[in-house]
C-alpha cells in the first residue's frame, strides 16, 4: 500500500483445493479501481495471489465465459446470494465481499462447480424439438408472433444453476431436478412442433426427481437473473401433468392434442 491510503476492496473467498478436500476461508485485499466487478477483482488476485496476511497463495479458480450474463458459467454465491459474478459490481456490494461456490453442485475447485446434473436433467426431460428424420419433413406449423415473444422469455434460461441453489428442495438428500429444466419442458411443449411430443416430456417430469418435488417456496422466481416466470411454469406444468395423469390412467386418443 502506498502512503496515500488508497481505497481497497476486501474479498473473503471460500476455497477448496480439490473435490473432496475441506473448504477454508481466505481473505484478500486489493486496490480499488472504478467500475470493478467480482471477475476483475478475481483477475487481480490471479495476477498477484497474495492473501491479506501477505502470504503467497494459489490463484483462486473460477469459471467464466461471456462476461455479459448470458452464459451462466460465472455463477457463484456472492454475499449469500447466488448470482453471476460478471454483473456483480463491487460498487454495489457490501464489504467484505464474500464469495462461495454454489454448493448445491459438486465443487470442483474453489468457485468452480460441476453443473452436469442440470444437463442430465435436460436430457431426461427431452428439452429439444426432434426434427431429424430420414427425409425432409418440411416446414412445421407457424407459431403466432405474440406466442413467440412470450416463449422467448422462457428461452432466456442459461442453465446457470442459480434457481437450483436457491431452492430448498434441491439438495444432497433429494434428487429434485429443480426449476430450470422444468421450465424448459413448458417452453418445448409450447412450440408447435415440440408439442408433437409433449406427452413424452410430461411423463418424464412425472418420473424420478420431477415436478412433484416442488414445495412452492418460490425462491427460484426471486433468484432467477433472467426474470423467467419459473413458478408460473411450474404451476402450468402441474395442470398439464394433472391432465396427463388422467389420460395415462384411463387411456386417451388425445395424447398430443
Amino acid at each position, binding site marked *: 500500500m502506498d502512503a496515500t491510503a488508497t481505497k481497497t476492496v476486501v474479498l473473503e473467498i471460500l476455497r477448496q483445493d480439490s473435490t473432496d478436500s475441506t473448504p477454508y476461508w481466505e481473505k484478500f485485499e486489493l486496490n480499488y479501481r472504478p467500475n470493478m466487478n467480482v471477475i476483475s477483482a478475481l483477475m487481480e488476485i490471479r495476477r498477484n495471489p497474495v492473501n491479506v496476511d501477505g502470504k503467497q497463495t494459489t490463484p483462486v479458480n473460477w469459471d467464466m465465459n461471456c462476461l455479459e450474463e448470458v452464459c451462466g458459467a460465472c455463477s457463484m454465491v456472492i454475499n449469500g446470494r447466488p448470482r453471476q459474478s460478471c454483473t456483480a459490481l463491487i460498487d454495489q456490494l457490501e464489504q467484505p465481499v464474500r464469495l462461495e461456490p454454489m454448493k448445491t453442485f459438486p465443487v470442483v475447485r474453489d468457485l468452480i462447480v460441476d453443473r452436469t446434473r442440470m444437463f442430465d436433467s435436460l436430457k431426461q426431460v427431452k428439452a429439444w424439438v426432434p426434427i431429424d428424420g430420414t427425409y425432409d419433413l418440411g416446414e412445421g406449423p407457424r407459431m403466432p408472433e405474440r406466442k413467440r415473444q412470450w416463449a422467448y422469455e422462457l428461452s432466456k434460461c442459461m442453465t446457470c444453476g442459480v434457481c437450483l441453489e436457491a431452492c*430448498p428442495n434441491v*439438495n444432497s438428500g433429494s434428487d429434485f431436478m429443480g426449476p430450470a429444466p422444468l421450465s424448459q419442458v413448458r417452453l418445448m411443449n409450447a412450440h408447435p412442433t415440440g408439442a408433437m411430443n409433449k406427452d413424452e416430456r410430461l411423463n418424464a417430469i412425472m418420473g424420478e426427481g420431477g415436478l*412433484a418435488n416442488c*414445495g412452492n417456496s418460490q425462491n427460484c422466481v426471486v433468484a432467477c437473473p433472467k426474470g423467467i416466470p419459473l413458478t408460473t411454469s411450474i404451476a402450468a406444468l*402441474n395442470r398439464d401433468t394433472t391432465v396427463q395423469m388422467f389420460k395415462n390412467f384411463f387411456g386417451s386418443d388425445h395424447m398430443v392434442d
Partner: protein
Amino acid sequence: MSKDREFYLRRLHSLVGIIPVGLFLAQHLVVNHFATKGAESFNTAVHFMESLPFVLFLEWFVIYIPLMFHAFYGLYIAFTAKNNPQRYGTFRNWMFVLQRITGIILVVFIAWHIFETRFQKAIGAQEVNFNMMADILASPLMFAFYVIGVVSATFHLANGIWSFLVSWGITQSPTSQRISTYVTIGIFLALTVVGVRALLAFV
C-alpha cells in the same frame, strides 16, 4: 419406495390433506365450538358424533388412514428440505418453512391429543366429554400446548389449501396465486377464531 411413484404419492399427499383431513379438521373445530354454548351443548354434540352409524369405519377411513399417510409422508417431505429463510426472507419462503414446522408440531400434537382422548375411551379408561377436556385444559401448560396445536393445524390447512391449488395447477398466474393467498389467510383467521374460542370455553 419406487421413485416413479413419487409423483402420485405427492399428489395423493396434497389431496388427502384437503379431503378428508382438512374437511375433518373444519368439522372437528365446529363441533368443538359447541363448548361455547355450555357443557350440555358440547356433550350432546359429542354424543351425536359418537353415535354415528359405522363410526369405527368412518374413523379409520376418513380420519386415521388418510391422516397417518399425510403425517408420515409429510415428515419425509419436511426432512428432505434444506430451509433457507435467512437467504430468501420472502413471504412464500417463510410459508414454506412454517408449513414444515407446523407439520412436525402437528404430528406430535395429534399423537398426544388422540392418546389423551380417543385412545382413553377405546381402552375404557375415560369418557370423552366436556369435563375431560376441562380437566386437560386446566393445566396452563396443556392449554398453551393446545393453543399451539390448534393454530398450527389451522395454519397448516390454510397454507395447504394454497399449495394444493398450485400443485394441481388450479392457480397458475402470480395474480391468481396472490388472490388465493388472501383467501387462505381469511380461512386461517376464521378457523383460528373458531378453534381458539372453543378452547377458551373449557377454562
